[in-house]
């Protein structure tokens, strides 16, 4: 019978290093993804994910199963990510990168990707869609961004997310509604029935501008 996360953590507390390996294998990809989508930088995301595991390992002796393991772990991860996002260096890098990407975007024509070779076209569309989604998520206020990522991708329960973000469940639902409402507007080219789903903005050379 598979051990629960709490049981694994209690085994780590008792000195079982193998249980820590199991937790690492189970959560390293979700954590790296969550952190990458929070900070939008793979190197920083990996560094922060390692810091989360380090803090979990460091706190093993004091661990008490008062909450779900994922709640505890994602609370550490969220706090680290929010601190990192608020760091001026990352913010300045992000602004300079966005300025480069945004320049002249409003004047860009729309590419009818159906006229191109299917495999290349599909790959470009998929990449462009992913970039648009990531950019829209990253444009959300930090707490809304964390709420959407924990809700949509980590599929945590509402009470868990509320604990991670240190707010009430009703405040969380309001936060999520505002976040998805913003995403609905930002991703209108992808989701609106009146806009063709295979249309993506392109630059002057005809390449997708994502």
């Amino acid at each position, binding site marked *: 019978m598979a051990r629960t996360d709490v049981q694994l953590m209690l085994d780590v507390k008792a000195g079982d290093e193998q249980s820590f390996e199991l937790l690492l294998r189970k959560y390293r990809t979700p954590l*790296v993804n969550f952190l990458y*989508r929070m900070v939008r930088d793979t190197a920083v*995301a990996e560094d922060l994910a*390692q810091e989360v*595991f*380090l803090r979990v390992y460091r706190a093993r002796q004091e661990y008490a199963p008062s909450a779900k393991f994922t709640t505890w772990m994602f609370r550490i991860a969220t706090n680290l990510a929010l601190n990192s996002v608020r760091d001026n260096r990352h913010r300045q890098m992000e602004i300079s990168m966005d300025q480069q990407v945004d320049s002249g975007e409003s004047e860009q024509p729309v590419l009818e990707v159906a006229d191109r070779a299917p495999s290349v076209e599909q790959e470009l569309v998929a990449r462009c*869609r992913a970039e648009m989604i990531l950019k829209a998520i990253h444009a959300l206020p930090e707490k809304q961004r964390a709420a959407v990522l924990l809700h949509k991708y980590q599929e945590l329960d509402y009470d868990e997310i509320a604990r991670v973000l240190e707010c009430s469940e009703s405040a969380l639902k309001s936060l999520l509604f505002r976040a998805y409402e913003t995403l*609905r507007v930002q991703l209108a080219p992808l989701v609106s029935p009146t806009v063709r789903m295979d249309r993506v903005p392109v630059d002057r050379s005809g390449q997708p501008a994502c």
Partner: protein
Amino acid sequence: MFGKEKSSLHQCAALESKLIEYLDGRARPVERHAVEEHLSGCASCRLRAEEFRAVWSALDDLPEVSPSPAFDAALRARIAAEPARRGFWDWMPTPRLALAVTALVVMSVWLSSRPRVATNPSVVSQASPSSQVSAESDFGMIRDLPVLENFDVVSKFDALSELPVAQAASRGEVIKETR
């Protein structure tokens, strides 16, 4: 705000708090039924709900990133660089020293727990001459106890110690007089 057909503005606003959990399938049956009832009579909210559902679906297109192959090794290196938690025995540089300290502690406890020879009357009666001398000096101290407890006398000892060597000879006489 949402539409007003067959529903009040209040009902449309109330949908905000229920729409997300309705769309993600976590709403309770009662709430799900209430949302569906409202959507059936409100075209504007119905369109909004469809677009939310489309956003929800579009978010699935975000590909996952994989941790780099060096992730685990880097983490292990960071854990290895952590200062180890040091218990009492960790402060001993070698097991031999730890054993020596243990033996010393055990011996000290054993010695302190042994009954003292001088305090045992039966042993005193059979004691050697050196033990008898020790007992006599103890008795002398008890005899002189009232003198030692007299602060004035003791304070004069300090004053006498300041006298020149020539006058120090009379010091014994002063003490005798005091007694």
